[in-house]
């Protein structure tokens, strides 16, 4: 495939530039200027706003509020009430709270376990997300190839892991990966191992990476595949007329056209991995050292549900939201390109 430039005889850089220009022009033609119709967009967004206001606004505001307090126990007083006659909603403190200002946020700065959980999460993220997206993209492209038969069967099988029940999958996964398990047996046949997948600080993180990748790759593949199928066919035809080979078609047609969907996958996978909870729990139940595998949401859960430090857990959550949102905006700006948001 590397020899293709030589084959056509054109200097590679000029020809590539021509391809890039051609496709960029077509792309812009597709999304030039959006109409500004007063109010219409808001009508389309209305159902979201209504549901959000009714169901999520209060819980969200409550956690913000809570993050400036220390939880002192159940049994609260009414702070204020929403009274609509037919609907009375007293907003209680729910609990006895002591106002501590920014102290919860200050504490974050010196909390070693928080830093450790953040480090673990980012470590897992840096390996897991690129690995998963690469595999998912590869599989999607392979499945999109016109000659592939039984496409539905491949796709269904590859996407099944996400529907497997977590408890059962955890049980089987631990059986497979344990010291004398099937995975180490297979590795043993080629002279590797046995690898302490759970008990070693180093490996246990990769065990999580592997588990998450197993579970979510097919899911992302489906999304990418749907995106691939929205790529207008005539762009490929045009590229073929311009003499593009497979790799060039992928690079100059598929990738740019897929960019919005790839961006979706990248952003949601990043957020998903930041919210990683079940897999680290499974791995630590299977014997992994907590200091190596505890993730940020696992730490938030422990803080809220085991230690009952609801205020501190809320502060942790808002810092997490700030960090991840900033990262998502960055991803969208950086990868979204000219038609960003």
């Amino acid at each position: 495939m590397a020899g293709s430039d030589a084959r056509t005889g054109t200097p590679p850089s000029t020809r590539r530039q021509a391809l890039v220009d051609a496709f960029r022009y077509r792309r812009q033609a597709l999304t030039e200027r959006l109409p500004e119709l007063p109010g219409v967009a808001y009508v389309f967004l209305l159902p979201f706003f209504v549901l959000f206001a009714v169901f999520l606004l209060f819980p969200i505001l409550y956690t913000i509020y809570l993050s400036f307090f220390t939880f002192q126990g159940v049994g609260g007083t009414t702070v204020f009430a929403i009274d609509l006659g037919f609907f009375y909603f007293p907003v209680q403190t729910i609990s006895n709270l002591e106002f501590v200002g920014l102290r919860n946020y200050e504490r974050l700065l010196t909390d070693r376990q928080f830093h450790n959980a953040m480090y673990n999460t980012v470590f897992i993220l840096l390996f897991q997300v690129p690995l998963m997206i690469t595999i998912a993209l590869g599989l999607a492209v392979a499945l999109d190839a016109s000659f592939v038969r039984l496409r539905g069967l491949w796709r269904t099988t590859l996407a099944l892991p996400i529907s497997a029940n977590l408890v059962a999958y955890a049980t089987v996964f631990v059986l497979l990966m344990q010291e004398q398990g099937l995975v180490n047996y297979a590795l043993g046949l080629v002279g590797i191992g046995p690898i302490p997948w759970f008990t070693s600080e180093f490996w246990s993180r990769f065990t999580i990476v592997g588990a998450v990748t197993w579970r979510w790759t097919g899911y992302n593949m489906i999304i990418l595949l749907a995106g691939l199928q929205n790529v207008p066919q005539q762009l490929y035809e045009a590229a073929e007329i311009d003499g593009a080979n497979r790799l060039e078609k992928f690079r100059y047609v598929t990738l740019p056209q897929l960019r919005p969907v790839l961006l979706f996958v990248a952003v949601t996978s990043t957020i998903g991995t930041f919210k990683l909870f079940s897999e680290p729990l499974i791995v630590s139940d299977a014997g992994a050292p907590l200091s190596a595998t505890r993730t940020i949401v696992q730490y938030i859960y422990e803080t809220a549900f085991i230690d009952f430090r609801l205020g501190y857990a809320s502060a942790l959550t808002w810092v997490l939201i700030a960090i991840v949102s900033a990262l998502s905006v960055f991803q969208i700006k950086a990868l979204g390109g000219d038609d960003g948001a």
Partner: protein
Amino acid sequence: MREAQREFAWKVLTYAVLLVATLVTIVPLYWILVAMTLPESAFLSTATEPRLLPGGHFAENFAALQGRVDVAILGVERVLGFELGFLGAIGNSILIATVYTSLSILLCSMAGFAFAKYEFEFKEPIFYSILATLVLPIQLLVIPLFLLMSRLGMTNTYWAIILPWAANPLGIFLMRQNMKSIPDALLESARMDGATEFQVFYRVALPTMKSSLAALSIILFLFQWNLFLFPLVILGQDKYTIPVAISDLIGAQRVYYDQIMVAAGLSIVPIFLLFLFLQKYFVSGILAGSVKE
């Protein structure tokens, strides 16, 4: 000739990639299926002596599961005159996820369309705020949300887990990204023909999005299918969904592995059927014919 060889090599590579990925995917799932049919003691020793073939213990395991779990669904069990056991949980999961998906698919594509195809004020801040709610860990929301549902009289109702995320940020984001590829010329020509904005959305934009909508329905269905903590807190045992019903089999002194495996194996079936059903919507090049340049 070299071209043909290259083409052949490419095919081999493609199939090899698919085959390896499928094998890696299938082994743990296959193990669940085998474990469904083994007595608990045999399953426990699969650690050292892998069993590749199913045993004959499925009926016993299933009976044990039915004896332990009893979930009702919309009074169907009363009509039928017998208890549904774990099948009730499967029914609840399907019911909730289906209603949720149908509702959410509309709301998400509407919102996604607004973000992709209109200019309006505060577009960016609104979008990023919606995206930020995606980061919220449910672990922290569960207590205030429970309290809210209790005030709204919605505890132990299906609506309590359908409505809060009916406008799913994930879905809105996906549709925003996909709908960007709809050619504006297409929408503009519909407007010229006198279509209302909702018609533009419903009659023109949506039909070009079949494979994205199929992907969206999978995302939404699975989102609801896998919800755990909130259904646990808000639903009574008679309305349990699959993840909660299975998790209940992990006790303090006993873990009912045989029953867990049967339950997990059975709950793969509906998803398999869903994928098959959505099959026909994953068709290549929907947009191809509709672009008029």
